[in-house]
C-alpha cells in the first residue's frame, strides 16, 4: 500500500492532461528527427535570416533594395507570372489526363499510370537535357521544320522564355495530374447519376457537379505546382535566355558570381516568406486536410 498513491488527487494537472502517461515514452522517438532537422535545416535557415540583416552592415537595407529597385521587382514579378502561367498550363493539359485515368480500368489504367509516373521518376536534369536536344539549333523541332521546308534557317527556340515555359510545364505536369486524379478516384459515381436523373445534361452535370467536386485536387495540385515553379532553378537556367531571370537564378548569381551574401540571403528569405504566405493563404481558403490528401 503506497500511501502516496492513495492520497493522489483525483483531478489531473494540466501537464498530465496534455501529455497522458501512456504516451509519454513514445514522444522520445521524435527527438532524433527533430534534433537533426533543427541542426541541419532550421539552424542554417536562421543563419541566413540573420545574415540578411547583418551583412555587410546591420539594417534592412537589402530588403529596401528589393522592394524599391526596379530590376529586382521585375525579377520577382516575372518569376511570379512564369509560375502562374505554368500552373495554368499544367491545369489545362493535366485535367483531361487525370480524368482519363479516373475513368479507365485494368490494363489501360495501369499503362496510363506508368506513362504519367515515368516522367515523374526521371531526373530533372535528364528531362531538361532532352528539351535542350529537342529545341536546339539542330534539334528535332528545327530539323523537322527545315525538312518540311517551313524555314531555311533554324529558329531560335532554345534559350528563350518559351523554352523555359515548355520545360517547366513538362516537369511539373505529373504534380498536377496526380492530386487531381486522387480526388477524382474518390468521387462517388452515384452523385453524377443523381444529377442526371434530376434532369441535368452530361455537360451540365459535369460543370455543376463533377468539376466542383474535383476542385480540392485541382487546388492542391495547383498550389504544389505554383510553389515548385516559384523556386525553380535548373530548368530556367538551362533553357532560358539571358533576359529570363528567375528569383532562384538571381540568388545563385549573387552567391556564386558576386559573393554578395547579405543580399542573396535577403532574396532567399523573401522567396521563402512569399512561399510560406502562399501556402498559408491557400490553407486558409481551402482547408489544410484537402491539400494533405492531395499530396498523397
Amino acid at each position, binding site marked *: 500500500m503506497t500511501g502516496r*498513491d*492513495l492520497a493522489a488527487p*483525483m*483531478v*489531473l494537472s494540466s501537464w498530465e492532461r496534455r501529455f*497522458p502517461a*501512456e504516451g509519454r515514452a513514445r514522444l522520445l522517438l521524435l527527438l532524433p528527427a527533430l534534433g537533426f532537422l533543427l541542426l541541419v535545416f532550421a539552424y542554417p535557415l536562421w543563419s541566413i535570416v540573420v545574415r540578411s540583416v547583418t551583412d555587410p552592415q546591420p539594417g534592412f537595407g537589402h530588403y529596401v533594395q528589393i522592394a524599391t529597385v526596379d530590376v529586382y521587382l521585375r525579377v520577382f514579378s516575372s518569376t511570379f507570372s512564369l509560375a502562374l502561367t505554368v500552373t495554368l498550363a499544367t491545369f489545362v493539359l493535366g485535367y483531361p489526363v487525370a480524368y482519363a485515368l479516373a475513368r479507365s480500368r485494368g490494363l489501360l489504367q495501369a499503362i496510363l499510370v506508368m506513362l504519367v509516373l515515368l516522367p515523374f521518376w526521371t531526373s530533372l536534369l535528364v528531362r531538361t537535357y532532352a528539351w535542350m536536344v529537342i529545341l536546339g539549333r539542330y534539334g528535332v523541332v528545327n530539323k523537322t521544320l527545315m525538312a518540311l521546308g517551313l524555314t531555311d534557317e533554324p529558329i531560335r527556340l532554345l534559350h528563350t522564355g518559351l523554352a523555359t515555359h515548355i520545360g517547366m510545364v513538362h516537369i511539373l505536369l505529373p504534380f498536377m495530374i496526380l492530386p487531381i486524379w486522387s480526388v477524382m478516384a474518390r468521387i462517388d459515381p452515384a452523385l453524377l447519376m443523381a444529377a442526371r436523373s434530376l434532369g441535368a445534361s452530361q455537360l451540365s452535370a459535369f460543370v455543376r457537379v463533377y468539376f466542383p467536386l474535383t476542385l480540392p485536387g485541382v487546388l492542391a495540385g495547383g498550389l504544389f505546382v505554383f510553389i515548385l515553379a516559384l523556386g525553380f532553378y535548373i530548368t530556367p537556367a538551362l533553357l532560358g535566355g539571358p533576359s529570363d531571370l528567375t528569383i532562384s537564378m538571381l540568388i545563385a548569381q549573387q552567391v556564386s558570381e558576386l559573393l554578395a551574401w547579405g543580399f542573396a540571403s535577403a532574396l532567399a528569405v523573401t522567396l521563402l516568406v512569399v512561399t510560406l504566405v502562399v501556402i498559408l493563404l491557400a490553407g486558409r481558403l481551402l482547408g489544410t486536410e484537402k491539400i494533405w490528401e492531395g499530396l498523397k
Partner: protein
Amino acid sequence: MAAAELPTALGRRGAPVRLEGLSKVFADAVAVADLSLEVGAGEFLTLLGPSGSGKSTTLLMIAGFLVPTRGEIFIGGVPITRKPPHERDIGVVFQSYALFPHLTVFDNVAFPLKMRNLPAAQIAQRVAYALDLIRLEGLGRRYPHQLSGGQQQRVALARAMVFEPPLLLMDEPLGALDRKLREAMQLELKRLQRTLSLTVIYVTHDQEEALTMSDRVAVMNRGRIEQVASPEEIYERPRTPFVADFLGESNSLGGTIARADASRFVVRTSAGLEVVGCEGHGMTEGHEVNLAIRPEQIVFLGPDERSDNVAEGVVEDAVYLGEAVRYLVRLKSGELLCVKRQNRRDGTDPKAGQPVRLGWSTDAVILHPARQQQ
C-alpha cells in the same frame, strides 16, 4: 487432460488478484473511481456493466496499457502497478483477437514462448498441446485470414494461455460471434478455465454471458462496483436498483413503507397499491423505497387461487418471444406491470383485453431505499 500431465508443463496455476483503490481520470472524466476487488486463485470473475461503466478501463489498467491515476494492483501478493505490460506475465484476449497477420497460427501461439526464450522443442510441444486443447490441431500452418471468426477467437485464446499465465484477462472476446457459436464458446472457455485452473477476469456487457460463466460477478456502473456476488445472489438479491434493473428484467415501483416489523413490511406505492414483502432491511415507516419484482415471478391466478400479493388488472399487450410470452398488464391501481410466462400453448394463455388476477410471493419483492440512482 490437465496441464500438469504435460511433461514440459511450466506447472503454473492461476494466482489470486487484488485491486486496491484503483482510479483512472482522463482529461474530461473519471472513468474508474476507487475500485477495490479481490479475485481468488482459479476463480472466474466477470466485470459486468453497460458501456461507459469503466470495466474495459479497469481491464486495461490491470494489463498495463493504462496508467492508474491512483491505486495498486497485486497478483499473487506482488504489486505490479509499476511494471510495464511486457513484464506483467498476464494473458490478454482482445475483442478483435489481434492475431499477427503476418505469422502462421503456429507462430502466433508460439510467440509468448519465444519471447520467454524457451527451447524450440519445448515450444513445439506446448503449441501442439494448446492447439489440441482448443480443437484446432493441424491448422498450425494456416494464416489468420484463412480462418473463420470462431477459429481466430480460439487461436487468440490459445496464444494467451499457452504460457500458463497467473491471470487471464478477456475483453468481450465473444462479441463478434453469432449466438450459437457464442454459447458453444462460453462452455468451451469455462471448461478450459477449469481444466487449467486459470484465474480469469472477464469483461462483458451481456448479462446472460456473465451469469452463465462466472463464479462471481462484479456489476459496475459509472466507474464503481455496485455489487460483487455469485450469479445467483446477484440475480435474486440485487443490492441496488441499478443491479436489479441491469440483470434480467424487473418491474420498478416507487413508494413508502406503510408498516414494517421484523418479518414483514408493507409498502404503499404512489398509485396506492399495497405490496407485501419479507426482507425489510431494517427500514421503518415512512421510508421512501424502490421495489423491484421480476416478471417471471408474477403468475396469473385462477379465480380462486390466492397469493401473498394479489392485484387485478387488464392485459394490454402480449408479445410472443418463442419460449415465453411477455405480457403488459395495466393494474386497477394504474401501474403497468410486465409479466413473463413460459409458453405453454395449452389454451390457458391470457389474451389482450382480458381481465386477470396477478399474484406474487413476498420472496419476490426486492426492496431498496430510494436514492437518486440511475
